[in-house]
Every structure is written in C-alpha cells, then in structure tokens.
C-alpha cells in the first residue's frame, strides 16, 4: 500500500471517531475503568508478594525451653540444634533479653507489664532454617528434644497471607474479565454503528474494487485507537494514584516494603497498554466480521 492508503486509513478512523463521539467516549471510559482496576490489582499483587518474600526471609523458629535447665544443658541443646539437618543459624535468647525485646516492641503500651511481679518469659532459641519449606520438618524434630517446652514458627502467618493474596487475585481477575468483556462489547457496538453509518460508502468501495482489507482496516484501526486511548488513560491514572500512595505510605508506614523501582513496574504499564490494544482489536474484529459483508 502506498502512503496515500496509510493516510486514508488514519483519516477515516479519526473521522469516524469524531462522528460517533459519545459512543467513542463511553468505550474509552470503560476500557479506562477496567484497565485501571486491573492496574491497581497488579500493583497490589506485586506488593503483597514482595511483602511475603520479606516475611519469609524473616521467618524463624522460636524454641522455648523448660525453666529448670542449667547452663550446660542449654549449651548441649544448642550444639544439638546446630547439627540438625536444615538448620542454618541458632541464637540463644535469655529470658531477660526476651522481656527487653517485648518492652521495646510494645513501645507506648509497655504499661501493661507493670502489674507483673516477675518475668513470665522462658529462655529460648531463635533457629533459622536454610529455606522456608524446611521449617515445618525442623520444628517437628526440635519438638522431640528433651528440655524443649514449645516450638513456634511464623508459617501460619505466611499461609494466611497467601490465602488473602489468592482471594485478591481471584476477585480481581473476575472483575477484570467481566469489565474487559464489557469493554470489548462496547467497542464492538461503536464499530457496528460506524459500519452502519458508512454502509453506503462501503457499497461504493466494493464496486470500485476495494479489497476486503482496504474496507476493513479503518474500522479495525478505529477499535484499536479506542482501546489504546483507554489503556493510556488508565496507565496515567494508575501511575499518578500509585505515586501518591507510595509517598503517603513512606511517611506513615515506613516499614512496609513498597515496590517503587520502575524496572519492576514497567511491565505493569506495558501490559495495560498491550491489553488495551488487544481489547480494541477484539471488539472491532467482532463487528467487522459480523456486519461487514464484503
């Protein structure tokens, strides 16, 4: 095709968009809303998985000891723990140290410990495993040792968090699919209206010897432009909203590991744009194939 054809396609697509301005606007709006929601969910997913990774790296087994152990028994236990398969690190935490830690973490609410006559906390070991998956087995083995009163590890927290993220994923995916289909439908309606409003012209093109692709292309382009515009708008809004949220969280909850690097976020924005293109192409293809008998 020569450059006159390329210019023709573009001009026709733009003319048609302007002619159906309200419907075009609605299509762009629905694409924007659905991709905005998808973008939010994707960023939420990225951040929860980053959060889980941080938690996992902090995951450790707390081994609480019986109160009647003497120093040599404690040292013997420490040696046993060190040689247990899967264990990478063993640290002794005395009951005094444990109380100190608790008071620090309670911060302003440490008053609640004032009623205590004596330190209620036992001596303990902090055991780190070589990987998260080994934690349940190692914890079970430690529980069998003499002098161990209780074994606690944070696996449950991680598992609960995983369940939460799975639900976030399911609900977000469902709503994105529903909204995505609505966007495809609205774009196909827009294109159908354009096809009908130009059916006389299409008939003339046919008897002038236009190929099917020549007739179809402006309509396909129109749908793609609609989809892409919606995606672009959604990306910009997601970017702005996310930047504001990052700034707020950095001030109020600095301990949360928020993903802010552009190299990790770029695939999200790129994905939204590509999806917008695909939604537009799908919507217009449906109408072009159903209503454009060439």
């Amino acid at each position, binding site marked *: 095709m020569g*450059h*006159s054809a390329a210019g023709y396609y573009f001009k026709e697509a733009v003319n048609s968009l302007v002619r159906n301005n309200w419907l075009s606007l609605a299509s762009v709006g629905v694409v924007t809303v659905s991709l905005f929601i998808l973008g939010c969910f994707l960023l939420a997913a990225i951040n929860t998985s980053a959060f889980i990774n941080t938690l996992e790296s902090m995951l450790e087994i707390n081994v609480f000891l019986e109160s009647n152990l003497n120093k040599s028994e404690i040292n013997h236990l420490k040696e046993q723990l060190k040689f247990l398969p899967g264990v990478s690190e063993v640290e002794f935490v005395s009951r005094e140290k444990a109380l100190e830690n608790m008071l620090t973490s309670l911060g302003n609410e440490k008053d609640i410990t004032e009623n205590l006559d004596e330190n209620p906390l036992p001596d303990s070991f902090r055991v780190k495993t070589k990987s998260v998956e080994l934690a349940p087995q190692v914890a079970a083995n430690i529980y069998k040792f003499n002098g161990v009163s209780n074994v606690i590890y944070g696996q449950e927290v991680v598992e609960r968090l995983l369940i939460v993220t799975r639900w976030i994923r399911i609900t977000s995916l469902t709503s994105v699919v529903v909204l995505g289909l609505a966007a495809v439908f609205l774009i196909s309606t827009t294109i159908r209206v354009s096809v009908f409003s130009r059916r006389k012209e299409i008939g*003339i093109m046919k008897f*002038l*010897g236009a*190929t*099917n692709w020549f007739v179809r292309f402006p309509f396909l382009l129109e749908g793609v432009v609609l989809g892409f515009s919606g995606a672009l708008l959604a990306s910009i809004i997601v970017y702005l909203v996310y930047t504001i949220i990052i700034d707020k969280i950095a001030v109020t909850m600095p301990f949360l590991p928020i993903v802010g690097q552009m190299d990790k976020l770029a695939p999200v924005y790129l994905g939204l744009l590509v999806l917008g293109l695909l939604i537009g192409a799908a919507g217009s293809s449906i109408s072009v194939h159903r209503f454009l008998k060439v």
Partner: protein
Amino acid sequence: MCVVVRFYNVTKIYKNNSVALNNVTLHIKKGEFIFLVGPSGAGKTTLTRLIFREDLPTRGQIVFNGKNVVRLRPGEIPFHRRKIGMVFQDFRLLPQRTIYDNVAFALQVTGASNHWIKKLAPEALKVVGLEGKAKMYPEQLSGGEQQRACIARAIVNNPLLLIADEPTGNLDPGTSRELMKLFQEINGRGTTIIMATHAWDIVDSMKKRVVALSGGKVVRDEESGVYGHGA
C-alpha cells in the same frame, strides 16, 4: 477480433425460483457499444451483475478478459472489478465528498499513489467536462453533471469495460443526448460499453448493436439495431 465478455449457456435462477436468465450465450467484442433492451424483469440487470461478479450464475460459464468469472477466488474479485467501470441510474456519489474526491476515491481504494491520483483524477474530470466543478459537492450539481461525475469515476482507472445501468433514467432528453455523446467519445477511445436502457429514442438514433432480452432469453441480437417496440 478480441472478445472481452463471453457467456456460455448462462442460467440464473433466484432463490424464489424466478428465472432471471435462461440459457444465454453471448459474445461481446473489444470496443463494442452494446445496448441491452427489454422490459423490466427481462434480466438486463442480472446480466450486468453476473459480469461484475456480484452474483454467481446457477449454470453456465462467464469469461471476462480471458478469465473465468465463476471460478474467481474471493481475493481476486476486487481486482476483477477494477477492470470494469460502473455507472448507475442513481449516481451513487458520496455526498460528503467533493466531485474531485469522489473521482480520486476510485483510485484510492486501489491503493494508487498520491502522485498518480493527482495526475489521473483531473484528466478524467476533463474528459467529462467537469474540470471547473471539481471542488463542488454532488448536491450542488445538476443531475446531468452528477452523472458526468459518476462517469469520470468509472473511467478514471481506465477500465476495459464500462457498464451503465439506465444511466439516463433520471435525466431529461436534452441532458441524455449530451451524455450519449460522452459515452460515444469514451467508446471511441477503445472502452467497451454495455448499456442497459429503456430510452428507445436514444437506441434508435445511435445505430449500435442491440441485444434484446425477454423473460431471461436473448430474443434479438442485431448489429446497428433498433429498440423494437413489443420486443
């Protein structure tokens, strides 16, 4: 003598069982000017539609410019149609485009370059005598002028065959005679013309080949014939 269109035992029966063409065999030579005459429903329009490959015959074969029209693949149809110019009774111009743009459109849809369009479109307008009205819109033109624009669009990519279906059906006798001169001029440049018409006075005065259809059959085929009342 080169033959542009051949019909071999062509029959067309529509879905409602009406027989539009019944075993028609016809040869049209290059450079001929043919009038298709006959009452409404005789099969004139069906014959032109089959040549243009808007429809397929029920039986028989049609050869255009050495190619079997019946066996064209879908992708070949547009290229087949580019060799045929069409002129209609109702003009079928695009109202929101200028006369120049309407003519240029015929080249645009074939993917012609801007350079060619700028060269050929004014030439076609000049042939039909509309070079001064290129920037006007169809509604600003008289019926005869609109038909001239339609002819310019039909001849702009230099087709082998020009099919005109009742081109003077909406025009007064004076304008019709002017248009006939134009058709004759185009025919004189070597373009084959098939014209379906009810205008008996024009047919009688032009003394061209006349093919008379009735009930889907060719009932008369004469060189320099006449309309023939009651045919």
